[in-house]
């Protein structure tokens, strides 16, 4: 176990047939990643029947290729169209899109590609360190830690609103309202369903996010007209971009602390079941924006705002394998479907899988890493072509993106109601853009709301009503409480420091 198995897996991947599956997975992942509405989850769901006849190891290469490549693919549309290709890329739009509008799409894509690849690599090594203590890691996260993590995530909303506190809170409340729709996990009653049985299972994530980000952005673009990039001097813009890609690569290494922090946050959040890439990318972004000296430039095209979420996004794939393989608990939506592929191939997820299916698990780890790097290389090769997207007339982009994303939403579950929900959320999203309400705040609350509610309920029952004493007796909980307090206080502390400094100057 360990390095030997890893080396063996690396050698095995070079064997002709396996490499073909990996490459197929990467190309599929990139394509599904780029198209808003489609994502790793959809790609894997469609692949389940295909993997039936495959050797388990080849199935791992195919699935790993997809999982590793979608996040970079998604960042391309996030940067170029302000439309995250997959939900976790939402945080990348904050600084990626402003860069693209300034004609610096090359810089953003170069940084995103490099951060993705490096994040994947760092995530892999973190995973290797974690494997021996995977059990302890998973067991130390109980209801109490879940509750505190969601509170930490909700606290980070305060950063994302950037001065629009009231609007941010309104959006967050709408997000919570959406999160609480459907069957109540502990009374069995249904809430806010209005007699529509489609809503019993709650509001599904993929259609909601596709509507909020992709469709709303397309409405905005269609009404505005023109093309994405403001710079109309095509010639000079092109010249800038060619050098931009290389600059983007260099930027990642120059800002290595951002890369490192993003990767570690990604791995840790990935390892916590139920939180997933959206939260990982967002926490990475907000912690970077909060602690940076130039925090006021975030949101206007700061390259660190692209590096942080993308590194976390790829690192979380490694992390999310910990609970998936060790306990059969998916760490993200993609791993939930990936779990199904494991079961189909006769691998029973559980602590024993690391002992009996070493070959397949290490094969998967290698596939994830290789595809994160491979997707970035492919992406960089085509980056010059991709950048032209921002020059295309929106009258062409809008119908293509709308058609593809609505089709993607339909394909996932085959439900027309999902498509209607996507359109409704698209209108809501557009109204939010129009009246300047932050959409990401809504999404964070929407993603975390349900987990927050049920873990609060669980902690209350488990601790016999003594919630605070119970939390303070658990080390991981204490760490999370401190992290939350710091998140809350950081902006005030920084303001105090700035005031202090300006006095000194005087």
């Amino acid at each position, binding site marked *: 176990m360990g390095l030997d198995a890893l080396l063996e897996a690396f050698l095995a991947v070079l064997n002709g047939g396996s490499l073909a599956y990996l490459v197929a997975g990467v190309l599929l992942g990139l394509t599904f990643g780029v198209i808003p509405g489609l994502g790793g989850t959809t790609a894997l*769901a469609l692949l*389940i029947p295909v993997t039936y006849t495959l050797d388990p190891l080849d199935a791992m290469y195919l699935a790993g290729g997809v999982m590793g490549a979608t996040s970079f693919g998604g960042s391309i549309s996030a940067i170029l169209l302000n439309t995250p290709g997959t939900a976790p890329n939402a945080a990348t739009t904050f600084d990626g899109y402003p860069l693209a509008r300034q004609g610096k799409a090359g810089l953003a894509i170069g940084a995103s590609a490099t951060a993705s690849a490096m994040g994947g690599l760092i995530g892999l090594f973190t995973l290797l360190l974690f494997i021996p203590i995977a059990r302890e890691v*998973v*067991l*130390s996260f*109980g*209801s109490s830690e879940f509750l505190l993590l969601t509170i930490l995530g909700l606290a980070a909303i305060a950063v994302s609103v950037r001065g629009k506190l009231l609007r941010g809170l309104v959006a967050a409340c709408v997000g919570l309202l959406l999160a609480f729709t459907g*069957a*109540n*996990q*502990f*009374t*069995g*009653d249904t809430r806010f369903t209005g007699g529509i*049985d*489609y809503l*019993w*299972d709650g509001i599904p994530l993929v259609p909601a996010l596709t509507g909020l980000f992709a469709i709303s952005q397309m409405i905005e673009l269609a009404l505005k007209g023109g093309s994405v990039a403001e710079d109309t001097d095509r010639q000079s813009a092109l010249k800038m971009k060619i050098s931009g890609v290389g600059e983007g690569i260099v930027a990642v290494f120059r800002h290595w602390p951002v890369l490192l922090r993003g990767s570690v946050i990604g791995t840790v959040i990935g390892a916590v*079941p*139920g939180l997933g890439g959206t939260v990982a990318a967002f926490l990475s972004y907000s912690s970077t924006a909060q602690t940076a000296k130039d925090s006021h430039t975030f949101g206007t095209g700061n390259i660190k705002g692209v590096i942080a979420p993308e590194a976390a996004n790829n690192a979380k794939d490694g992390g999310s394998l910990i609970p998936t393989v060790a*306990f*059969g*608990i*998916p760490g993200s939506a993609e791993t*939930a*479907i990936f*779990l*199904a*592929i494991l*079961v*189909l191939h*006769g691998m*029973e*997820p*559980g*602590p*024993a899988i690391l002992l009996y299916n070493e070959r397949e698990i290490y094969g998967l780890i290698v596939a994830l890493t290789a595809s994160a790097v491979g997707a970035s290389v492919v992406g960089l090769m085509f980056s010059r072509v991709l950048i032209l997207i921002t020059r295309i007339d929106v009258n062409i982009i809008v119908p293509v993106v709308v058609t593809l994303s609505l089709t993607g939403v339909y394909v996932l*579950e*085959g*439900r027309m109601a999902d498509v209607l929900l996507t359109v409704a959320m698209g209108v809501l999203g557009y109204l939010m853009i129009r009246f300047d309400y932050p959409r990401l705040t809504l999404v964070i609350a929407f993603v975390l709301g349900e987990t927050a509610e*049920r*873990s609060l*309920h*669980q902690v209350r*029952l*488990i601790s*016999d009503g003594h919630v605070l004493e119970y939390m303070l007796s658990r080390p991981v909980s204490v760490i999370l409480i401190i992290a939350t307090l710091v998140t809350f206080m950081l902006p005030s502390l920084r303001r105090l420091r700035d005031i202090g400094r300006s006095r000194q100057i005087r």
Partner: protein
Amino acid sequence: MRKLIATGIAAASLLAGGAAYADFPNDGNITFVIPYSPGGGFDTIVRQFAPALEEALGSTVVPENISGAGGARGGQAVHRADPDGYTIGIYNIPGLTVNEVTGRDQGFALNEVTWIANLAVARYALAVNANSAVNSVEDLCASDVPPKFSDTGATSTASVTTRISMAILGCEIVDVTGYSGSSDAMVAVISGEVDATIKPISSLAKYLTDGGSGDMKLILTLTEGEAVPGVPSATDIGYPALAKFTLNRVIGGPPGIPADVVAKIEEGLRMAGESEAVTSWADGAGVQLGFMGAAETSAMMDDLATFYQEYKDLVGASE
């Protein structure tokens, strides 16, 4: 033109009448509705049976996932289909039975479904942490504080089973619901967050001291007679009613499928269940195949409805 052909076909099939049923399945695909997304227990068993069923019936079987509303949407889709045998489905039983007892409108009535077969039965057991001092149900219930159990949703079959069976045993409990999956709920016992959990024996197997990871031990099986060596059963401790709790894989179709068509599908499913592919998969995955024909399945469904009706008050909300 197309309309004309369609009318012609309709007329021809009317003329053929009973004969068309006699040679079921003569053409077309058989749609096998799965009321959950790909990858779960329901999906897996249907996809394992499908190739063997195809071979037995000589007709293509297409599994179709129609997820939503706790399995009710898939059930509705089957209910609306023509009763010609070309649409069948697997049902979330006893989940739908429990919903019906609590008066939730599911868009169709279970007693109208044409029951065809039961493919597998999972039985429940009560597990505690392997390091726990608790070795029997008496130990568990002897404490001053009611023992805590872990479950997914309050309307999940396992949660309903937990509440009713512990009530039958006269043991006051707290059922902590909201875990995102049954693995999650079992890990809560391993991490010591809760005291015990009632789950299907096959799901618990991978965590048991005997043959699993050694994190949990069984103190009771909800079965008639010994199901796991050395673990007392419901009958052993004098509560045979507890053996009523099972998790079934039941196949049915729209109301009014002709008896001869039902018989053919039933036979096809029986043959599929005995095929090498299915039995070896079941062995590996810890699934207990337990074939029942149409008549037996119908009787069991009536039985279940009566049983849960009896405990109607406990089936509802936990608090």
